[in-house]
């Protein structure tokens, strides 16, 4: 881990003084994503935390070009950029659409599925902070069962988290990967790889959110690590259909021992109303999914 730190591109593409909250998982992930993708990148984003991070007119902290669009249209906007660049015969630019789970899982799923089905040449990045955080932590389909949100304030979220990564797998993309800002070098390496691949690539960032998940801002890294240590988040990549564990999940799969999900859940205020039954269902779901991934890794 130590020596890898010096291979990372030192340029900072987000100038200090952004509007993001203290200890924001997205900001940390975005920092490494841009380091990996470098200057020749064009972004398009919807109204979201990322849009707020990109700043208010006339100033932006981000030194990479970016086009804001409406909530349901992020992937379509990327399609247009890809088509426009092709029409202007500019080929050496990486087109990136980046949105949160709300825009990706819920309102924008149609545009993303369309763009993926057309194998549009772009990277779609979903930073999954498990709720509509920019507008005050309302529930989205990515919110885990048992979590308190401003729209499930008493009974907690009733339904399980939509397994969106599996939906994207069904599109049989050239490359798909899951990442976490708690493992920045794993994230960095995957974006470096994704940049070189042609066609639609889907990158999932599991992005801890202090004000939304109700944990202290100093614990952002710890929470993200616990998610991987318990198997709630599994770090892997799928290249032309071939599944491979990566980073901490790889060592866990080979010889490590997963922690119980309660270690992760108990450190976040959003789960303080989670029932035992919900906790057990979550543990069972994590265990069965981990078993599936182990099988896929062997074959």
């Amino acid at each position, binding site marked *: 881990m130590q020596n890898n730190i010096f291979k990372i591109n030192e340029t900072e593409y987000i100038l200090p003084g952004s509007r993001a*909250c203290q200890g924001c998982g997205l900001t940390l992930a975005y920092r490494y994503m841009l380091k990996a993708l470098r200057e020749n990148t064009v972004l398009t984003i919807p109204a979201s935390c990322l849009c*707020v991070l990109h700043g208010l007119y006339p100033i932006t902290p981000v030194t990479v070009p970016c086009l804001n669009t409406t909530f349901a249209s992020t992937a379509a906007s990327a399609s247009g950029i890809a088509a426009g660049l092709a029409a202007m015969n500019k080929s050496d630019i990486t087109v990136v659409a980046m949105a949160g789970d709300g825009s990706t899982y819920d309102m924008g799923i149609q545009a993303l599925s369309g763009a993926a089905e057309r194998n549009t040449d772009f990277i779609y990045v979903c930073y999954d902070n498990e709720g509509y955080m920019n507008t005050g932590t309302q529930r989205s389909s990515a919110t885990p069962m048992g979590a308190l949100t401003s729209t499930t304030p008493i009974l907690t979220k009733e339904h399980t988290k939509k397994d969106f990564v599996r939906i994207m797998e069904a599109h049989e993309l050239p490359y798909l990967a899951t990442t976490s800002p708690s493992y920045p070098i794993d994230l960095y390496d995957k974006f470096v790889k994704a940049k070189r691949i042609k066609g639609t690539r889907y990158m999932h960032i599991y992005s801890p959110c202090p004000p939304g998940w109700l944990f*202290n801002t100093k614990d952002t890294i710890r929470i993200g690590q616990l998610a991987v240590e318990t198997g709630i988040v599994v770090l892997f990549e799928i290249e032309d259909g071939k599944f491979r564990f990566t980073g901490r999940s790889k060592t866990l799969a080979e010889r490590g021992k997963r922690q119980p999900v309660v270690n992760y859940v108990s450190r976040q205020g959003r789960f303080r109303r989670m029932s035992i039954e919900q906790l057990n269902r979550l543990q069972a779901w994590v265990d069965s999914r981990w078993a599936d991934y182990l099988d896929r890794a062997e074959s």
Partner: protein
Amino acid sequence: MKEILWHGRGGQGVVLAAQILAEAAYIQGYGGVMSAPTFGPERRGAPVVASTRISREAIRTVAQIEKGDVAVVLDASLLGIVDILGRLKEGGALIVNTPLPPEALGIDGSYDVATVNATDIAVSNRLILGGLPVVNTPMLGAFSRVTGLVTLENIEKGLKRKMPADAARTNFAVVQSACEQTVIQPKEEKTHGTEEPEER
């Protein structure tokens, strides 16, 4: 009509203080009360402004307050960052949470300047929330003392409207202490009358 601007940082309860004052004023019998946050994104620690309006009759204006009659500052460091005096009427009242006495703030221009160490009061009453001393409710005590617009009794009733009974009780204790410990430096020429001048 009296217009009050509350200055603080995200997470200090500026909006809640403005609301409690409106509740208290309504209980006291003012026909018109209104409170509003500054619209837009709030960030923990970033400067935030909220407002309260109090009047005999129902209030019809909803525009933002241009210059308030009173400015309540929950965090003295804001004096150097936010143009607080720019939105305070000539002869208005400035109430600041700071250990310093009013004279030490170096406020020029004719304002009533009042200070109280709300942070200390909160800490000594063990009123800490999310690692932050609760400085919004004590300032309601200082407000009552400086302006006389609402009584402590009605502030207590206002507290009960906005929080559970036990929280209201502990918060009222700091309101009282702040009221007692507030130091006022009235502007030179006019003594401060508590009577409200007739409607403009």
